[in-house]
Each structure stands twice: as C-alpha cells, then as structure tokens.
C-alpha cells in the first residue's frame, strides 16, 4: 500500500487568494463557542484596543482578532469554526444527460 502523496503549501496560494479577497461582510461564520451561525457583519467589533476584536453577538466570545503592525498583520480566527463565502459559479451547471 502506498502513502497518499501531498503537495506543498504553494498549492493553497490560488484558492486562498480567491477566498481572502472576499468582502467579509457578505460571509457567514459559525461561532466556535456557542454555534451561532450568522453574518460576519453582525459581529460586535471592539476597535479601541491594540487590535480589532470581533465578538459573537450571541455569546460575546471572540471570533476574530486582527492585529496590524507597521509591516505585518496577524489574523486569529480560532473562534470561528467556518466561514461560508459566496463564490462565483465555477462552471456552468451541467444539464441532464
């Protein structure tokens, strides 16, 4: 039995680039703490802080932290189970055979 092969992280560049340029307010996220699933635009964001802190509107747990340094940025989304992002249709939906 052969081991499954894998690609290096460069493979993610294209797909991630497509995803990370999305308007976040159009995305839906799930709170890791309470399971609330809703628009990321509904988060409570605290900006009078060393970074931006986005909290779940239901349980107030942290879903997103974004820190911007002069030449670097950090994004911590461990409080977000998933992001559901609207994407353009990849290819025309195949019709019935």
């Amino acid at each position, binding site marked *: 039995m052969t081991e499954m092969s894998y690609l290096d992280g460069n493979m993610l560049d294209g797909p991630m680039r497509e995803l990370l340029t999305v308007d976040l307010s159009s995305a839906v996220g799930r709170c890791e703490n309470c399971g609330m699933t809703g628009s990321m635009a509904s988060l409570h964001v*605290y900006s*009078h*802080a060393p*970074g931006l*802190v986005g*909290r779940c509107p239901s349980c107030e747990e*942290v879903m997103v932290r974004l*820190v911007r*340094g002069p030449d670097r*940025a950090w994004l911590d989304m461990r409080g977000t189970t998933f992001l559901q992002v609207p994407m353009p249709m990849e290819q025309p939906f195949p019709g019935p055979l």
Partner: protein
Amino acid sequence: MGIVSPGFQGRPRTQEPALPPGQYLTEDFPVLSAGPTPRVSLDTWEFVISAENGSEHRWSWQELMALPQETPMVDIHCVTRWSKLGTNWQGVSVDTLLDGVDTGAHFALAHSYGGYTTNLPLDDLRGGQAWVVHTFDGAPLPAEHGGPARLLVPHLYFWKSAKWVRGLRLKTMDEPGFWETAGYHDYGDPWREQRYQGD
C-alpha cells in the same frame, strides 16, 4: 520683529519628560478594551494564585483590603503609543500575595473576569515591580479602567497590566496570552520598543 519672545516658543526637547521610543505624552487616561466591561460585585470578587503543583491561594475583597497597602506613583506606557506620567494608585504588592506561595515556576499567566489573559515572567511580578491595584487618584478604580482591581506592571507595556484581574496561574513554561497569541510581544519592554513578536 516678532512680538513673541523666545521664551514662549516651547521647551527645548532636552527638557521634555523622558518617554520610551515612539511614545507621546497624554494627560488623559484613554480607555482601551477588547470586549464588554465586566461588572464584578465585591461580594463575589476573588483573587486566586494557582501554583504549578495545583495548590491555590485565594483572597476575598475584604482579605485583599486587609493586606498591607502600597501607593505606587508610576509612569505607564500603552502599546498604542500614549504614555501617562506620574499616575497614582493604591493596592497590594504582588510580592505580598506571592509570600507563602511555594513555587518553582518562572512564568505567570494573569487572567481576568471577562476572559482576558496576559503572560509575564514571574520575576517581573516580584521585587516591588507589580501590584494588584484598586484605587486610582484616590478613588475606587472605575470599571472601564479595570475595577474593582487590575494588575499594575508599569515597566512593561500597559496591556500586561490586566484589567479586571482575577488571578495568576504560575507556570513552568511561558504560555502566551490574549494579545501575545495575536502578534504582540511576549515580554513587551517599552524602552526596547518590544511591540510585536520578533521586535
């Protein structure tokens, strides 16, 4: 010829108060917060030091107030670049709280009501360098500034001075806290401008 004498052109830089690099002086006391302000009743408030061996040392509000009180006057430096000089506090030295705690730990993770955390070397909480303070400028510390009680570690950036502090977990390994896991420096010395990881 101007009517303003040279004496009104401001103080030369050499007479400016000494500030860490990249900081500006403020007379205000800006409120920074990463979440909703916890409202903690003094009846239920407690401070807990958890040693790495599992032992716990607890103080109620009354017990904290019965400990020897100190009145540090210190300069504070926020990583968002404001500094405030000569601030007046009252509280209990962390040395007093650690007295009688049997530990070989080298690190502490301060934790707060509301879930905030920040990590510090234990040595930086000792030697008259850190306090649990409950009074600012002679009045009870307002909730927006961390009341009923906050940590005060003025020789490090002010995010290390955890608001609404609830306790210290003593640790053998350094465990980064709320901002330290999001890019901020593990130590945070304002005089060495240790703002972000790797600075």
